[in-house]
Each structure stands twice: as structure tokens, then as C-alpha cells.
């Protein structure tokens, strides 16, 4: 375990660097070592010590895990992390209702969240200060000894932030009008929808994302309350260049035709807000749409394979389009079969959502599989897709959802039960800056 081990190298993306293990920090003395590339083994000192020397296989797995644990995604930058960042394995998403009516309190909360995010994403505790005897700990502690695991914290503002309470009406982007009246909205539940603020925490470890949201909502007590939240256990999209395509809970590869991190022109055209925005504070930001989509798992499981493949327009095992080739072969929407019917069904998911059928519209999908266990009344598995997409303008989502919501064959097996639209401001530039500073000052 030296400097040459994988954790100390940039992975996938220039923004990813190795971190000093937090255990180092906790052991006391090494305060101020942030950013110093220490042998990442420090984070796994115990494992290292007890590992039998003759083991040949373990070190590899250990090194891989160590590299994963110690990977840092830069928090400060012109754009928020957690959008084009190679998608991590775990999600916790939370939205908040503000209880304060004082706009300065809102700003201070965002200041606090920014500084916390800067530390958490480096795998540090809320503070290195020792806890006074008799006082409650500053940090809740459950991420101690874990690495940063590529944690990203992405913050967004809901349309309701711009109502009468905070005097922000004039700063509301026209694009942020509430996401209502779309096809497929009939099962939406208010208690799983909307919110004044949102936080998307993604990392390669479930406890790391939970810790971030927990401490940030603790910091909000007295100012804002959790409205709803969602854990996602497996990524259901690929955003990193060369990242393998994972599968959603219907068993299909999801994220094949996504906008990927290295596709700079597509990101500029479809994902990042530019000078076209009516609000300067949103330039270099992006609009986040979240949809909690329940899957009717038990019904789906009885559907035959050819119907499943017709519904998506792709082969289940390989992800290749029904028109042939491999996963990344372009789909031939013109192709006809022997009976002169389109090979890619007119009601198939990929046809209805494709740029070819939607005047070139594309979005960046960054969803997660979720389960809430079991529905307490029906006993069915309560699971589905926690769909997240980023786009330059929410209308991109609106157009696609209206088409899908009214025609998609998939609708028989899904129901949208939660929804939220959030304006994610540009990145936090450096310490002293905070989420949305240009909006509030």
C-alpha cells in the first residue's frame, strides 16, 4: 500500500482524487493533513494488520475497496458535483420545508450546508474539535472510520421557495414553474412530492450518504424540517464515460443512451443552464427532476420475455436494440419486420423517449433503484425506480413524460407516486461561498 495504489490516482474524471483517510484525522495528531496523499492503507489499518501474509487474492479486493473508500470528488468548482460525476452506487435524497420566514436564516442554513458538504465530501467529520464533557457530539459519528466514498452533495431550490415568504419572487426563473398536470400524474402523493429545498447525496457507501443527510437535517432543526426522503440502493443509470451500464429492477440495462460525462457539447446543449436563462444566478446550474416510480413487480414478473423486450425495444440480456447489433449500436427506428410492422414498437419506451422522436430532446438520467420493503397492506414488494434527471430546462422532461405518460406500454407496470422539481444553482466556488449565494445577495 504505497502511493502507487489505485486510490491515489485520479479515476474516471479529473475531479476525483484520493483522500487522506478519516481515521488518520480521528487519531488526533495529523490535523491539517487534508489533501496530503497518504498511503490509503491508513483507513484500513486494522484489516491490514490481521491479513495473513500468504494471502494472494485478498490484497486485490482490499486495494480495490480501499481505493473506492478513499476516492474524493471535488466539492468546490464552477458547477455542482453529483450531476456529471460518474454515478455512485448509493443515494439518499431528501427535501425540506422551511419553517422559518426569515430569508437570512435560509441563507445561513445554506452557508452551513456548504461548509458541511465541503468537509463530508473529503471524508471528514463536521469538525475536528473535541466534544466538551456533558455536551452532545458535534457530529453524529456513524461515518467515522469510513472513507469519503466519492460522496457528492447537490442542493436545489423548489418552486415554493419563491412564493411570498422570502421576497424571492422576482428571482424565480420562469423555467421553475411547478411540475403539474403531466400525463401519468394521477397517483402522485403530496407527502412524497415537492419541498422548498432538496439535497441529493450520492456515494459508494450507504452509511456515508445517510450520515450526510442526517447531519444536514440536524443543522436545519429550527429552520427547516424534512419533508420526505428516499434511499436508493443501486444506480439505475450510467453517467460516467466508460462506466458499465447497470440494471433497473425490471432487469433491463438502464442508462445506455444516456448523456455521458465526456460528451461536453451534449452537456452544454441539454444539461447545463447557460446565458439563455432569465436569471443570472442559475447560469451553470441545472434543473433536477425527481420522480418516485413504483414498479408493479409481481405483475411484471409474469410477463413473457418477448413482451418485456417489446415494451423497452431492447434485448434483456445484452441491452442491444431489437434492430440488432450490440448494446451501443444505434437503434433503427425505421426497421420493419416480415409483417411490415415496426421492429421497435410504436408504444415502446425507447421509441417514445428517444431524441429521434422528440425533436432532439435529451436529458441526463441519474436514477436509483429503491425499495421501501413491503407494502404493509397488500404485502407486495414496495420497490421501483427513483428517477432523477438533470436538464437545462424542465420542459425537456415535460415533453418526454407527456409522451411516455400517455402512450408508453410500460405504464401498465409502473405508477409515478412522488415528484419534485428543483433548480440546482451553480457550484460553490471556494470556502466562504455557498449554495445559491448569488440568489440571496
Amino acid at each position: 500500500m504505497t502511493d502507487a495504489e489505485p486510490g491515489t490516482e485520479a479515476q474516471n474524471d479529473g475531479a476525483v482524487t484520493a483522500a487522506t483517510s478519516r481515521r488518520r484525522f480521528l487519531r488526533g495528531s495529523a490535523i491539517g493533513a487534508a489533501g496530503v496523499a497518504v498511503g490509503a492503507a491508513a483507513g484500513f489499518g486494522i484489516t491490514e494488520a490481521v491479513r495473513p501474509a500468504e494471502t494472494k487474492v485478498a490484497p486485490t479486493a482490499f486495494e480495490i475497496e480501499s481505493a473506492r473508500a478513499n476516492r474524493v470528488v471535488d466539492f468546490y468548482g464552477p458547477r455542482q458535483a453529483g450531476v456529471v460525476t460518474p454515478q455512485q452506487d448509493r443515494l439518499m435524497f431528501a427535501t425540506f420545508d422551511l419553517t422559518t420566514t426569515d430569508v437570512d436564516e435560509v441563507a445561513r442554513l445554506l452557508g452551513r450546508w456548504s461548509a458541511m458538504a465541503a468537509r463530508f465530501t473529503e471524508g471528514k467529520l463536521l469538525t475536528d474539535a473535541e466534544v466538551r464533557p456533558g455536551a452532545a457530539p458535534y457530529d453524529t459519528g456513524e461515518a467515522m472510520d469510513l472513507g469519503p466514498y466519492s460522496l457528492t452533495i447537490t442542493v436545489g431550490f423548489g418552486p415554493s421557495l419563491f412564493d411570498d415568504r422570502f421576497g424571492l419572487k422576482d428571482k424565480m426563473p420562469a423555467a421553475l414553474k411547478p411540475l403539474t398536470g403531466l400525463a401519468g400524474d394521477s397517483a402522485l402523493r403530496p407527502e412524497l412530492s415537492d419541498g422548498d429545498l432538496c439535497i441529493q447525496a450520492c456515494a459508494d457507501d450507504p452509511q456515508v450518504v445517510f450520515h450526510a443527510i442526517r447531519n444536514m437535517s440536524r443543522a436545519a432543526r429550527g429552520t427547516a424540517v424534512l419533508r420526505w426522503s428516499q434511499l436508493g440502493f443501486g444506480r439505475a443509470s450510467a453517467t460516467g464515460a466508460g462506466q458499465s451500464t447497470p440494471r433497473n429492477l425490471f432487469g433491463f440495462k438502464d442508462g445506455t443512451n444516456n448523456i455521458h460525462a465526456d460528451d461536453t457539447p451534449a452537456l452544454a446543449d441539454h444539461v447545463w443552464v447557460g446565458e439563455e436563462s432569465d436569471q443570472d444566478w442559475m447560469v451553470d446550474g441545472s434543473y433536477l427532476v425527481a420522480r418516485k416510480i413504483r414498479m408493479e413487480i409481481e405483475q411484471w414478473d409474469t410477463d413473457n420475455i418477448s413482451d418485456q423486450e417489446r415494451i423497452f425495444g431492447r434485448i434483456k440480456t445484452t441491452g442491444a436494440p431489437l434492430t440488432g447489433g450490440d448494446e451501443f449500436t444505434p437503434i433503427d427506428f425505421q426497421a420493419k419486420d416480415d409483417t411490415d410492422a415496426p421492429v421497435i414498437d410504436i408504444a415502446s419506451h425507447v421509441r417514445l423517449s428517444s431524441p429521434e422522436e422528440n425533436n432532439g430532446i435529451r436529458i441526463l438520467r441519474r436514477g436509483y433503484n429503491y425499495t421501501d420493503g413491503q407494502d404493509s397492506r397488500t404485502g407486495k414488494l414496495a420497490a421501483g425506480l427513483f428517477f432523477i434527471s438533470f436538464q437545462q430546462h424542465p420542459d425537456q422532461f415535460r415533453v418526454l413524460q407527456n409522451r411516455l405518460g400517455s402512450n408508453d406500454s410500460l405504464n401498465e407496470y409502473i405508477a409515478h407516486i412522488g415528484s419534485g422539481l428543483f433548480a440546482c444553482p451553480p457550484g460553490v466556488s471556494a470556502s466562504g461561498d455557498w449554495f445559491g449565494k448569488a440568489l440571496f445577495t
Partner: protein
Amino acid sequence: MFSSRALGRAKVAAAVAATALVLSACGSSDEAGSTPAATTTAGATTASDAVTVDGSPESSETAGATGGETTGGSQAAGEPGIVTITVTEADGCVASPDTVPAGPITFNVTNVDAAGVTEVEVVSEQRIRGERENLAPGFDASFSVKLDGGSYEVYCPGATTERQPFTVTGEAAVTTGNIADLLQQATVDYAAYIDDQTGFLVDATKPLVAAIKAGNLEEAQKAYATARVFYERIEPVAESFGDLDPAIDLRIGDVEAGVEWTGFHPIEKALFEGKTTKGLDKLADKLMADILDLQARAKELGANTSADTKGADRYKPDEVANGAVGLLAEVQQSKISGEEEAYSRIDLLDFEANVEGSTQAFAVLRPALDEIDPELAKNISTKFDTLQALLATHKDPKQIGGYTLFPDLSDKDLKALADALAAVAEPLAKISGKIATA
């Protein structure tokens, strides 16, 4: 007496110990040649002028009031001193200049990027002389305070370096009151409160026993609800007598196999689910006996506390503070979930009683806390008011217990209550740390 406490705190860091020792000696340190105060900025002479950065009038009042209390001996004239306090992740809390002459001083605070720091205090003799709460990274704030000559500390809880010595040259202050005395008084007041409540509990249990024995179900149900209130207010005290709380307040799910289920809840089950008083005589007698026992034991604690008997079992200030938090934790655990009163469904009455008990514990500590940390005290009391106002909206005189029954509360009601509760619990939990170091 302060010196030993100051030394206790020295665990935190060696550097702090040195400061603390200086503090305990605490003379005025008007050495010649101390740095002259910056006097370049005129105009910020009053507290309310000074707190312009974020324009929070609340803080300016408080900062002003804090300063006002302790300015007796000051003879400072002329323009105010300006001190810049910079809080950073890397260096903690740094004041510049660190020596100023006595008089009105404006502290301009910038939290650059310290996520753990939400307040800065100017402290001497464990008392906060001036402070600014609610700091956030990326924000400036300021407060003004009149300081007399002496040794102070600039204290930023949660910073990497939390304390920095700060010197005011000039005449020393005449200190008022003594925090240790105030804390002792708090325990005496708490003992008196507990004595009252246990007395009321005894008085309220008697009619319950009588109604049961007379076979009057309706009366017994009402008496049950009345008695519960007094018990729930003082639950942490009962819990401190290990065996008594289980005997009085165990729920069916917590009864170990082979142990008899006694106390309020089997009676509740019979009265509200079985709708009968039959077969309860023995349980009622046992409850009465246990409650008399509770009263006797609490009386002894109270007597030791009032007599300030060293070494004896007595109420301690930090226990009172922890009790206040504990009562709210009770609510969070069993009342907000409707698990406490499974048969009578008067959970909200218990909720109110726990909150009331917590408020009273806070109230007895308040005089000391007003000296130690007036802003915290004010914040807690505002949040208690909010919670109590919210509870009051669920009053329903038609119900036994006077509150909406648990099953009739909507999920939205419960969430609002839980959120208001958490908003008090968070600052309330800070008290014991504050008085432990005072």
C-alpha cells in the same frame, strides 16, 4: 471554586489549561504598553447600530443587554474598540487585536468556512459577557458589548482551536451573583417542584383507588387521566429509583416473563379496554403504595438538596438539565408513536405533561443559564412557546384528558408536533454541557 472547574476543563487541551489558570486568578491586567484599540470606525457605539451586518434585531438586543449587565465599574470614554474575530477551519478562532482598553467594544465576526462553529462568545469567569449565535460559514455578524478590565477568552465552540485569550486593560469589573449559587438554587427549586408534583400525584391517585373500589368506572377513568399527568411530569425522577418506574409505569410489551404486571397500565387496560373496575383492588393498592414510596424517596432527595448535604444523594444541576432532555426523549419515543396509552389513547395528555415537566426543569435552571448563556436561554424558551402553542391547538375538553385522542391525530399533526419537539430538544441538549463547564 472556579479554579477547580477551570482545571477540569483543562482536559480539552493543554493550551486551554494555561488560559484557565490565568482566568482563575483573574485580576485586571493593565500592563503598560498594551496594544491600543483600533478606533478608526466611528459610529458603531451602540449594540443596535453594531449588528447591522445581518440586521437581526433580536441578537442586537441580547448582546446589548448582556453587556449592560456587566458594565458597572467601567469608566470608558471615547470611541469604541473594534475587534475582528475570524473563524476558519484551519486556524479556529482568532481575535485581532487581542488586547483593547475597557469600554464599548464591537466584535466583527467572520466565519469563513468552519462547519462546526455556530457561535462565538466572549467569556470570563465562565460567564458569557457577549456573544453572537447563529453564525454560518460564509457570513459576517457582529455584536457589541461593554467590557471592564480583565482577562477574557474568545470562545468558539466547535472550532479546531476553540479558545483564545483576550485582554481588556483598565478597571476590573465588580462581579454580580455567583453561578454556583444560582445552580444550587436551581436544584433546590427543582426539589420543591418535585415535592409539589409527587404530592399532587398522591392526591390524584387516592380518588382513582377509591373509584375502583367503589366500582365507578366513569370516575375511575377520569381519575386515571388526572393522575397520569403528575407522573409524566416527573418521570425522570421516578426512573432514577431503578425499581419504581417499572413497578408503576411498565407497558405490557416490556414485562418480562414470570414478572407480575403492575402499575398504571394494567389498570388502564381494564378501565378502557375491559371497561371494568373488577379485579383491580389489589393492583390499585399496590399502585398507591408505590406512589407513596416514590413520594418519600423524592422527599429525601429534596431535603438533602435543600440542606446542601455534601456526599448525600441529591439533585444535581446537570441531572436536572438531562432530565429536561430526557422528558422530551420520552415523548419522541413513546408518545409521538401512540405507544404509551394503548387503551385510553390519552397519549397527547402525557405528551403535554412531559413537555410541561421539561419546561419546569428548564425554568429552574434559567437564572443560572441567563448568566451563562442568555441567548441560548432565550432560544429555548421561544421554541418551548412554539411547541406549547401547537399542543394547545389539540385541546379537546370533550375528551377524557382534555386532548384529542391519539387515533384522531392526522399524520400531518404528528409530523408538525415531532418537528416542533425536535426544534426544542436540539438547543435544550446544549444546557448540560454549558453548566458542566460553568
